[in-house]
């Protein structure tokens, strides 16, 4: 399909994927539900503020991991699964650190960051070698 546009204007190209990504909406909804649930439990006095924050981060990590897994199973969106999995891992590490006490357990974040960098690097290196 040829690019459209009037003379003097930048040409516009049609979107490769016309349909909106329904998976994004579903998981964004789940993330917002997690936030609401955690805030509600804190407001009702069932959880302390830090516990509620930890719960939200745990739920967010689960949502992100699930999102990554589902995207990995669909070739269309496979490229998005790695960033989501990494975000989920960092969220889980942050949740654990908040739950256990951030002043003592903040190195968990560094560990998560290191594990993600290592996994991402090894994965990409292997993919590059396989492609060659």
């Amino acid at each position, binding site marked *: 399909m040829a690019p459209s546009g009037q003379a003097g204007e930048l040409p516009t190209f049609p979107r490769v994927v016309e349909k909106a990504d329904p998976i994004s909406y579903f998981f964004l909804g789940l993330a917002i539900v997690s936030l609401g649930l955690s805030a509600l439990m804190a407001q009702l006095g069932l959880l302390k503020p830090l516990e509620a924050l930890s719960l939200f981060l745990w739920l967010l990590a689960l949502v992100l991991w699930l999102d990554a897994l589902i995207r990995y199973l669909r070739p269309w969106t496979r490229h998005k699964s790695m960033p989501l999995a990494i975000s989920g891992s960092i969220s889980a590490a942050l949740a654990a650190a908040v739950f256990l*006490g951030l002043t003592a357990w903040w*190195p*968990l974040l*560094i560990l998560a960051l*290191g594990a993600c960098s*290592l996994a991402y690097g090894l994965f*990409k*290196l292997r993919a590059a070698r396989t492609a060659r």
Partner: protein
Amino acid sequence: MMIKKDVGLVLLIASGVIFIIAGLMQLLGVFPLYGLSLIEALGLAFLASGIILLILGLLGVKVGGSAVLLAISLCVLMVISSGALAIFTPGRLEAGSVAIFRTAEFSSVSELSISCEISSGSLEVYSTPNRSLLLEAEYYVRPGMEPTIEHEVVGGRLSVFLKAGAILLRLFVASWLPWSLTASTSLGSIEAELNITSLRSLKLSSALGSITLSLMAQELLQNSTITASTSLGSLDLNLTIGPSVGCQVRASTSLGSIGRELEGFEVVSSGWGYLLIRSEGYASAEHFLDASLSTSLGSIDVWAERRA
């Protein structure tokens, strides 16, 4: 043979390994470069990162974000190795130890001088009216990171020098004899709650930590000076003085803000990042207290009250 494209990925993997080693070292309490100051550790990290980038540049390899991540990971590793953040593992701190200088042991002492240098952690200073005590230092450190405490008595003056890496330190200073304190921290905060009736001088400085001062003097036995400065942290002064005390507070900040709440004090001059206040009846006071507060980025808040 490794293709140039793969160098970025190799750097990413190296960063990951370094982050994991740094995280494990902090969690397990292993600090092989303990003794290096924070600035020295960061300097070494910058040096190593710079050399790696230089080599990659000479080889004509484009690595972009991976190189930055490697530099960050090296900085994290060096800072953790130096033990500067060792205090942030509370569960592993050694039970509190105490160093006490009693009046009975130093009966000839008529003046106290304390010098304290801390890398990270926190410093709390309290005054005590207990006449059997000159100085008590209560501290929490990791095993093997005990502070060095030295002292000498010259001409009736007890001088105590305390130096520590990562520490939670609480000082109880005798408020009934003339005393002076000089304390500096790199990362740690400083909090002081003092009766400054017998104070000669108080000098507090912190690079990144905040300073909170709560000072009270119904009267002064001599003129006193207070200097408090911090680069990034905030500075709070809560000051209460009696009518015989002439007090002047000078506050200055480069980029922070200055807040004030005054009673029995008047503003002599103020401007952007600057404030000078004096107590009422300043000129007719018996003794004078001169306080100077400064920050670079942090805010300054002054609550000053002159009680009749």
